[in-house]
């Protein structure tokens, strides 16, 4: 996603110091906060409205979800390493770390697929009750975000083999992918706390 209309940022424009592309990603993330804010608050409102209708503690496996949360957190760590490697122009280290992020992202998605399948078997579907509707839509939207991130990083991994990536050109692109990845991670922390952990208090 490399795009910049006027390549000459040294023209002395009265601009913020932040790069165009990075600013665009920050704005997207600001907007995305509202997307997840709407989804999470819908979930919490219905949860509060019908506290007795459904007990998710019988369904949630805190061990599994803690594991996948941990995996996602570690993937963020590897993402930070990949960004730093790209800044130094160390392509090999970048590839290794990005592969790690992709692998961990896939593990997270696998856990989510397993969890969904398990819940559906246990009788919680989209149309069972409001809990099912809000839970699947919220965590599903998050899962789609992770999947898009994995797809993005896979594209980047292959692109790094074309020889067109270097610290000067691509560091900012990798950094933007990193911003996205960290954001998706943070959103999961919020969901994990507000949707899973809180049920066990």
């Amino acid at each position, binding site marked *: 996603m490399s795009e910049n*209309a*006027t390549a000459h940022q040294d023209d002395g424009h009265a601009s*913020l110091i932040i790069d165009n592309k990075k600013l*665009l990603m920050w704005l997207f993330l600001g907007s995305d906060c509202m997307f997840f804010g709407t989804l999470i608050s*819908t979930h919490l409102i219905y949860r509060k409205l019908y506290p007795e209708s459904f007990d998710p503690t019988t369904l949630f496996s805190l061990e599994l979800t803690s594991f996948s949360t941990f995996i996602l957190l570690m993937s963020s760590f590897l993402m930070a390493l990949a960004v730093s490697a790209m800044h130094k122009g160390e392509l090999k280290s970048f590839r290794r770390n990005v592969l790690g992020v992709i692998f961990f992202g896939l593990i997270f998605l696998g856990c989510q697929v397993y969890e969904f399948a398990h819940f559906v078997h246990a009788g919680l579907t*989209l149309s069972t009750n409001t809990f099912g*509707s809000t839970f699947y839509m919220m965590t599903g939207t998050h899962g789609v975000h992770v999947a898009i991130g994995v797809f993005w990083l896979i594209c980047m991994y292959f692109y790094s083999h074309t020889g067109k990536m270097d610290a000067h050109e691509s560091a900012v692109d990798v950094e933007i992918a990193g911003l996205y990845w960290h954001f998706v991670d943070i959103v999961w922390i919020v969901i994990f706390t507000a949707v899973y952990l809180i049920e066990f208090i």
Partner: protein
Amino acid sequence: MSQTQIETPSPTTTQAQPAHVLKPERSRLGLMRPDHSKSVFIDWLTTVDHKKIGIMYGAIALFFLFIGGLEALIIRTQLIIPENDLITAQRYNQLFTMHGTTMIFLAVMPLNSAFFNYLIPLQIGARDVAFPRINSLSLWTFVAGALVINFGWLLQALEMMGLFAASGPTAGMTDMVPAGGWFGYAPLTSKDYTGVGTDFWVMGLQILGVASLSSSMNFIVTILNMRAPGMKMMRMPVFTWMSLVVAFLIIFAFPAITIALGQLMFDRVFDTNFFNVAGGGQPILWQHLFWIFGHPEVYILVLPAMGIISEVLPAFSKKPLFGYSIVVFSGAVIGFLGFAVWSHHMFTTGLGKVATAAFSLLTMAIAVPTGVKIFNWVGTLWGGRVRFTAPMIFSLGFVWMFMMGGFSGIMHAAAPADAQQQDSYFVIAHFHYVIMGGIFLALVSGIYYWVPKVFGKMWKGTLSNWVAVLIVVGLNVTFFPMHFLGLLGMPRRTHTYLEGFGWASYNMVCTIGSYILALGILLLLVDLIRCLRSGEPAGDDPWDARTLEWATTSPPQVYNFAQTPVIPARDALWVHKHGPENKKITYEADHGHGIHMPSNSWMPLIASVGFVPLGLGMTLMQAGVPYMGYVAIFGLIMITIGLILWAIEGPGGYHLHPEQENT
């Protein structure tokens, strides 16, 4: 419009300057970029030039203004006499739903967008927006969304011609036009009550959301990062400031409706329980989510109009805008408060005393920054040398008419009064004064003000006076009696009424007024066409204006400014013309490598077109039409491929060397 490059290098030129020879280059994909195409058609389809994109936005918006106006005229004609049976009640529902949706999402917002696109880079002295290809994506995605929303009308037309029937594989396709009202309250939009039309509406609005969000992010980056040297934030023209506020409003308000529409879609497709009362869903959730978007949307519509007024009034009063910083500040305050008043649309739903009082107070508070703006505009006029040109007349009309709408708005803010006015024609009167009398007049003012810049042609004669008289008289005759209709108890969205209700004469007057209004708008189009066909050349600065866009040629070259201007002051051009010697606009020296221009691209168009099969496939799949799932998947693949090729293709670009005398 596009004869901009120096395309004809004489072969005898001794200078070795191959940069003059502009041939399409190959992109990183190995494909030819569609630059400098001989075909005008390809050039406009693939353009990334913010000016062409702005013109296309404007043209499409005017087309939908026409469609929405036609729908309104049919509604008014139905109501002209008691117990009229011109159209069925169902058709009436479809018409008012599509009238509202079309006017807000397909006419006013894109017309605003046309001004954003065309003016912002010119006003801040930039070559183009920050992301020219995203700009192109926004335009074509908007077109795709408009098509999906209106697809029901197309099917309906085919059905009337006998070319389409809801039978066999398309048996599920009844009720093809959205009929749930422009705010689509649950549970009316559920599967039990409305057909595939609601699906078109949901999908279409989602796609339009993609367009609005991407263009807003693009404009924020443009305004924050692409300003010419010296163009500090507090030197920016007010229109650009208001655009910035609007862009922020869009990126924070649209997610709420996107999610709400997603939930509604899930309810309809996967039988979820978000708004399904039987499953525990709360229809009021829709109202909250919709108005968390819907009220900022009001300011999304009106703030650009206020920006236009803040440009036009100073230009024709020969005075700087009175209290520039406070006008900018109150615009931002309106933006903030706009997020805190959504529940005043829901006073009658039983929010509880505290919530009602809080939202009532906040709604009254929002009148303060709005009033500040009005007083500043009056202050701008005060003691000024006022010239009654066409844009000025419409701007003055805005101040007057918008105030009328504002007054009835304050009446709504009082919750007990609002409980009486809710869903009556009083509300219709209020928001049509704000939208027609306010926003529309400002947009017409903007059209009269900037068309000489956009097309380089000057308006002919005084037809504009007739346009102004017809529109202002028409809208007052149409909408003023609606206040009385509302107080007499006529509910909105009434298909017909009985003789003895005492509504007949007012309705007759309203309908006559709407014809006058329509005549005025028709005359506006005539005036526009006359100007474009045979207007005299306008010159760079026909209005003796104040801001930077008038410092370049009319129409501007593809690169806007041959050399980057350095801005010494607010109202840069005015200071340049009439200010002290040390406050002239200067131009940065050319670095010798020419002007870097972004390359045209097919990829945004491909990605945008993918939204059509995606949107239609998903809606028709829901209606049970076979194979539509594959169509939707095809659309998704098309979008993905478009985006991937976009990324690989690279921004490209070429260098232009304008002749020196262009500067």
